[in-house]
Structure formats: C-alpha cells, structure tokens
C-alpha cells in the first residue's frame, strides 16, 4: 500500500512527533468571522498542527466544509482537515469535491459516514450513502495514488495530494468489531484515526491497546468542558460518551463556587491537571496525538499542551 505524507499533520505523525489537532465548526451562515477568530486562536497557541472543519455536523445544515476549510486555511494559515461525509453526496459529487480540495491546496480529509439525515434539521432529506466511509477512503486513495476514480476513470493532469483520516469509535462495543472495521480501512489506505471525545483514560488506553495491531496512527479525542452544564450535556446527550462519575462530581462542586472569576480559574486548573495526566498516559500507550474538541474555550488548551510536551 503506497503512502506519502502530504500535509503538515501527516508529516509530523510520520516523524513520530506527538501532534495536537483542534476543531472548527462553521454554522449555517456565510459569515466565517467567528470561526476564523477561533482558528487564529488555535494557530497562536503554536502547537496545534491542524484543525478539523466539520461537515454538516449532526446533520444540521451548514456552509460547505470545503469552502470553509479553504477560506480558513487561506486567511489564518492554520492547516485544515476537511471533513467530508457520504450522507449528502454520491460518488460523482465526492470526486468533484476531492478534486476541488486538491485544487484549493487542502491536504487532509477526514472521511466520514456522517449522521443520518433523520437526526438533523432536515429530516425529510433523501440520505445518499452511495458510498460508506471505507469506500470514501478507498476513493480518495485511488485518486491520490492511481489518479483514478472507483470506476477507473482517469484524472487529467496532476493528482490531488491528500492524506485521509477516519473516525475512531472509542466506545464501540465489542471493541473487536471496531478493530475489524479499522483493518478494512487500513487496507484501503487510511492514514490516521481521530477518535470521538473520551473522558475516561482507562477507556482510551483500552482502545489504544486493541487497535495497536491495525497500525494506523491514532489521535485520541478530548473535550475539556468549560462548565458543569457542558460536561453534563456530554454525559447525557452525546451517544456513546461516558463521563466518569468522579469527573462529574468534581465539576458539580466547582459549579457551586459563586465568584465567577474564581470558578473559571478553578475549572481551568482542573482541566489542565486532568488532561495533562490523561494525555501523558495515552502517549505512553502509543497514541500519535490528541484531537482537542473544545470549541471556543481556549483557556486550558495552551497549558495542557505545555504540560505534556513543554514550551
């Protein structure tokens, strides 16, 4: 299986550097000001190599992630991981968008199945699913390395230079099933895995041990919450995410601090301590990096990264 590192992210992973990626979530709007500000913040932290640009997350319609990823990367200099889901596009449209991404200088795609249309804001939409996420990885790999689409039609001129990632189901049960899934994706050319958010380090370690044999570099997803309400939301409403009881109890205690500034500082400190230990542990277990999903909550990010890899 031919593989090259085209993106900064893939190059750093290849060089065995422990990498950090962030997350950007453009909305149903043509105004990207806020998202670009967050991208600039991430860029200024210095150690965030790239950031994912979400594609109709939870099947809520939003601005094209291709366009958003391009504009963000152009205007902020932060490398983007263009998220692309098969829920909304057939293989023709996917080829068009992958070529578009190549022409616009995007170097990473996260290939996703995507949430079903029935869960989102447009439940009457026809879900496409012409391909699934493994087929999309296959398509991208063939376009990049063979210059052909799935039907063997040739790309004229230079090929897109793109590394492709896949989502990791850290809570998949049984994990054995997840390992088989990832083996298929490895077979068709997945370059890296980014997992969903996990709070319990034991679960992250269990996952890393299980997927080790697949051999795809894995970035563990974390989500430092800014408040008790946010932690609670994760535990209660995000399918498949378990927030440990001690973590919730500690956040509950901190939420009772009346002075806002003190509370904020305490929560930040807690997040830093908790996630520095967490990341050190997953790093020991062979994780290639961490995907930090705290959108719009920059306070703990720099100290967490410094706590792990120094200034």
């Amino acid at each position, binding site marked *: 299986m031919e593989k090259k590192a085209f993106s900064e992210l893939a190059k750093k992973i290849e060089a065995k550097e422990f990498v950090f990626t962030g997350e950007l979530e453009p909305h149903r709007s043509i105004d990207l000001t806020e998202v670009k500000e967050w991208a600039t913040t991430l860029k200024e932290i210095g150690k965030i190599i790239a950031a994912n640009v979400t594609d109709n997350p939870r099947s809520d319609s939003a601005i094209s992630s291709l366009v958003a990823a391009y504009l963000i990367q152009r205007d902020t200099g932060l490398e983007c991981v263009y998220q692309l889901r098969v829920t909304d596009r057939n293989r023709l449209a996917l080829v068009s968008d992958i070529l578009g991404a190549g022409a616009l200088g995007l170097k990473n795609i996260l290939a996703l*199945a995507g949430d079903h249309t029935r*869960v989102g804001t447009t439940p009457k939409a026809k879900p496409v699913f*012409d*391909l699934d996420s493994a087929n999309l990885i296959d398509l991208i790999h063939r376009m990049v390395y063979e210059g052909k689409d799935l039907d063997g039609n040739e790309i004229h001129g230079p090929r897109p230079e793109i590394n492709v990632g896949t989502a990791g189901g850290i809570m998949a049960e049984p994990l054995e099933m997840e390992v088989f899934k990832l083996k298929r994706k490895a077979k068709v050319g997945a370059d890296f895995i980014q997992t969903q958010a996990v709070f319990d380090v034991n679960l992250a370690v269990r996952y890393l041990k299980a997927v080790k044999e697949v051999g795809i570099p894995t970035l563990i997803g974390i989500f430092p919450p800014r408040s008790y309400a946010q932690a609670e939301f994760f535990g209660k409403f995000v399918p498949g995410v378990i927030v440990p009881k001690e973590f919730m109890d500690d956040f509950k205690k901190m939420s009772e601090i009346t002075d806002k500034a003190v509370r904020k500082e305490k929560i930040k400190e807690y997040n830093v301590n908790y996630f520095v230990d967490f990341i050190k542990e997953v790093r020991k277990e062979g994780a290639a990096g961490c995907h930090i999903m705290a959108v719009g909550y920059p306070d703990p990010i720099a100290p967490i990264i410094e706590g792990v890899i120094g200034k």
Partner: protein
Amino acid sequence: MIITKEKPIEEIYGFLEPFGSVLVVGCDSCTQPPRGLREAETYASLMEMAARVKGKEIKCEAITVVRQCCSEGVKEWIKPDGHEVILSMACGIGVQVLNEVFPEIPAFPAQNTVFVGWEEKREGIMYENCRACGDCLLGETGGICPRTRCAKGMMNGPCGGCIDGKCEIPVQLRNWRGEVVEEIKQDCGWYLIFNRLKAMKRLDLFEKYREPTDYSIWTNPRRI
C-alpha cells in the same frame, strides 16, 4: 411477484464447499421463474457434480415448501436435522427467514433477487429485509442483509451510530395509510452480522472490505 436470477454456480458452490451435507430448499410461492422442487433437485445434482469435479464429495437432499417467507410455516415444514448447511432457492426474504429460524445451520442464497412486483397483502407487521437489489450478499453476511437492515445501507458497517448494538435511527412503524404509528428501537444490522459471523467462525468475512453497491440496476422505471 418476486423475480430471481440464479447466482453463478461457482459462487454457490463456494458457499457450500466447506460442508458435507446440504439441504436444498425450494419455494413454491411467488418466486418467478419457479424455484420449487424440480429446481431444487436440479441444483442438488449440480452441486454434487461441482464437488466431484473438484475431487470432493457433498451430499444434497432436495425438498420444497409452500413459502419460505413465513417463520412459523418454515419451523413446521423444514426439519434440517442431519444437514450442515441449507441452500435456499427462494428470494432474499426466504434466506433470511431460514437463517433466523435455524441459527445453528447457515443458509445461503442460490439466487439474486432482482425485482419485487406489487402484491397486495395486509397481514400484521411486514419486515422489508429484502429490497431485490439483484446482487445478493446474504452468503457473505451471515444471512442478514446490510442493504435493508442498516439505516445507511453500509457495505462496511457498522457506523458510529451503533450504540449497545442498537441503531441510532428508530424504525418507523406505519399503518396502511403510510402514517407513522410508532417508532421502535431496532438492532444495528451490522452488529447482528458481526455476532452471526462470529458464531459461524467466519469473522474473515466481516473483515473483508466490500466495494460499493452497483446502483445502475436500480434505475427507474424498471421492467422485466
């Protein structure tokens, strides 16, 4: 009316090769061309011949039933004891019913189900389970169809929406007017496939990467 087309002999023989004793089950119901006793007997001989050509031996017994799409009937009509494997001459529904009713004995499809005609029937809940895709995968997926039992029709599932073995999308139970009367949590099709293949010691089939579905045969309007 359900139209089926024979799978290539090599593909069918590939399903049966690891086994010694085969029960070939015809279906006298709506499948067209007919896939009853005569056709079951023909396939029984063909499979024995295919084995002999390869220097092997399998024993095939041919029977038929009134229809394979009824769990209750199948339980009563078919006694598969003494056979290691079933070859179903019926449509994709029949294959899935046999796998469900006799979990100890894998049932494989001899047909690609290519077309389901209109048939007016209102007898309790009906499960779709076969969409006559014309490229039957049941032989590789433990007799459980991913195209109809996965909400996303994934070829390489499950997706991240499989939580505790259940699909994040509840199935909508509709009345005869087409109105939703109930939403029911359903099993994730790929989770079922995983467990079934594990029980069959065929997780190699789960690990296999599958190419996308060929949708060119679904172009409307269709005629046979």
